[in-house]
C-alpha cells in the first residue's frame, strides 16, 4: 500500500529564467522527492509560479530538470499533473464535469456524447478524489472546493510522476479545505508520485509539508518546516512571529 521511495526524485539543477531583460529565477536547485509533499513558499513575485511554469515545460529556462530513479539513473520521461489556483472560465458554458474530464481522457469528441469506457474512467477518476457525485453537474455550478477536486481528478489521470498544485487551497470554504487536504495526504501515502505545492498558508505548511523551499528568485532556505521557519532568511522575508498568521 505504501510506496515511499525517497530516492526516486526530480532533480532541478541551476534553473534560471530570464524574460524581457529581467531575471525571474536565478540558479534554483532543489530535489522533489517521491512520496513527499514539497511546498514552495515566498512572497508575491518571488518566482513560485515561474518555477512551476518551467517545471511544466511552459517557459524557456536554463539549467536541467531530471527525473532520477532510486539508482541515480535518468528516467526519460517526467509525467506531470497540474492543478491551477483557480479556473477562470465562462460559467454559463453548457459543459458537465463528465464532459470536461472526458474531453481530456478520450479522443471521441464530447459533442457526440461520452462512450461507456470513458464514462467508467471518468467515474473512477472522480471517485478517487471523493467526487463521484459531481459527474453530471455543470462545471459552472461547482463550488470552489468541488472545482478543485475535479481539477485534482483530472491531474491524476494519467497517473503523474509529479503533481504540481498552485495554491489550490485559496478560496475554498473550511469543509472543502479539510476534505481536499485529506485527499492530498492520502495521495502522498498511497501513490507513487512527488507532490509540489505552492502555498501562502504557513500554518498549513508547518502542519503538512515534508520539505519546504523558501524562494526569492533563488532558494533562500530549504529543509524541514522546522528548519526553514527557524532560519534567519525566513525571518527576513516574513518577519518573526508571522508564521502564526496566514501570510
Amino acid at each position, binding site marked *: 500500500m505504501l510506496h515511499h521511495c525517497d530516492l526516486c526524485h526530480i532533480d532541478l539543477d541551476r534553473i534560471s529564467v530570464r524574460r524581457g531583460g529581467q531575471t525571474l529565477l536565478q540558479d534554483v536547485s532543489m530535489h522533489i522527492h517521491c512520496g513527499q509533499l514539497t511546498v514552495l513558499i515566498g512572497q508575491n513575485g518571488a518566482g513560485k509560479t515561474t518555477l512551476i511554469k518551467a517545471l511544466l515545460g*511552459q517557459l524557456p529556462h536554463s539549467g536541467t530538470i531530471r527525473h532520477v530513479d532510486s539508482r541515480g539513473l535518468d528516467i526519460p520521461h517526467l509525467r506531470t499533473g497540474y492543478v491551477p489556483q483557480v479556473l477562470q472560465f465562462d460559467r454559463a458554458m453548457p459543459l458537465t464535469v463528465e464532459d470536461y474530464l472526458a474531453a481530456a481522457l478520450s479522443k471521441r*469528441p464530447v459533442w457526440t456524447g461520452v462512450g461507456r469506457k470513458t464514462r467508467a474512467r471518468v467515474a473512477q477518476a472522480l471517485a478517487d478524489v471523493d467526487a463521484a457525485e459531481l459527474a453530471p453537474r455543470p462545471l459552472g455550478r461547482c463550488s470552489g472546493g468541488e472545482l478543485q477536486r475535479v481539477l485534482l481528478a483530472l491531474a491524476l489521470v494519467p497517473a503523474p510522476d509529479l503533481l504540481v498544485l498552485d495554491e489550490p487551497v485559496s478560496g475554498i470554504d473550511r469543509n472543502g479545505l479539510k476534505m481536499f487536504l485529506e485527499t492530498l495526504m492520502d495521495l502522498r501515502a498511497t501513490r507513487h508520485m512527488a507532490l509540489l505545492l505552492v502555498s501562502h498558508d504557513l500554518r498549513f505548511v508547518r502542519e503538512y509539508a515534508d520539505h519546504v523551499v523558501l524562494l526569492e528568485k533563488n532558494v533562500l532556505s530549504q529543509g524541514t518546516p522546522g528548519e526553514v521557519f527557524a532560519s534567519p532568511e525566513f525571518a527576513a522575508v516574513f518577519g518573526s512571529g508571522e508564521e502564526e498568521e496566514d501570510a
Partner: protein
Amino acid sequence: MAQLLEAYQFTFMKNALVAVLLVTPMLGLLGTMAVNHQMAFFSDALGHSALTGIGLGIVLGLRSDLLAMLVFGVVWAVMICLIKQSGSASTDTIISVFSSTSVAAGLLILARGGQFAKYSSLLIGDILAVTPADLVVLSVALAVTVLVWILLYNPLLLTSVDPFLARSRGIRTRLVECAFVVLVAVAVMLSIRWVGVMLINALLILPAAAGRNLARSSRQHAVWSVAIALFSGVVGLTASYWLDTSAGATIVLVSALLYALSLFLRSVRK
C-alpha cells in the same frame, strides 16, 4: 401543409432548401464553440472581410470570387489569431481595427466608378440562386467541417476552459485555436454568397446562443444548436416564399425569435 409545400415545386426552391439543409447545420455546429470561445465579434468581422477578398480578387485579376474570398478570409483570420496570441492589445480592439480596415478596403475597390450595385447582392445574399454545382461544394464543405470538428473539438474545449491547463496536458493551444479560426473562415466564406455579409454572423451565433440557454452538456448544446439552425432555415425559407421577403433575413428573424424563446425558457427553468 400541402399548400405550404407548394413552394417547393420550383427547382430554385428545392436547391435553396438543400443549401439551407447544408449551411445551417454547419454553422450551427461551429457556432457552439464560437459562442463558448467568445468569438461573436470575430466572426462578424470575418464576414465583412469577404468584401475585401472579392475586391482584392478583382485587383489581382482572379476569375473566381469564391477563391479570392477563401484565400483572403483564411489569411485574415490567421493574422488576427497570431496578433491576438501575441497579446499586444486587447482582442476586441484588434478585431475592430481589422474589421473596419477590411470593410473600407473592400468598399474602396468595389465601389470604384459607382460599380457597387453589381456587388450589393453580396450584402444580403441570394440563396435562391444556388445551383447544383454550388450544392456539391457545400456538401463537401459540410463533410470536411464535421471531420475537422471531430478532431478539433476536445482540444478546443479544454483550451476554452483554461489554456494553461490545456497546454500542461500537451495540447498545442495556439495551433488548435488557429485551426478553428481557419475552419470558421472557410465555412463563412463558402456560405456568404447565399446568406449575405450582413446576416452570416447571425446564423453562426444565434442558434448556438439559443442552444446554450437550453443545454446543460456539450452534446445537448450541439443538438439544440443544429436543431434550431435547421428549423430556422427551413421555416424561414418557406415563410420567405409566401411573404415574398428576403430568405436570409427571414431565416435570421426566425432564429432571433427562437433565441428570445430560449431566454424565456431559461428564466422559467431557473
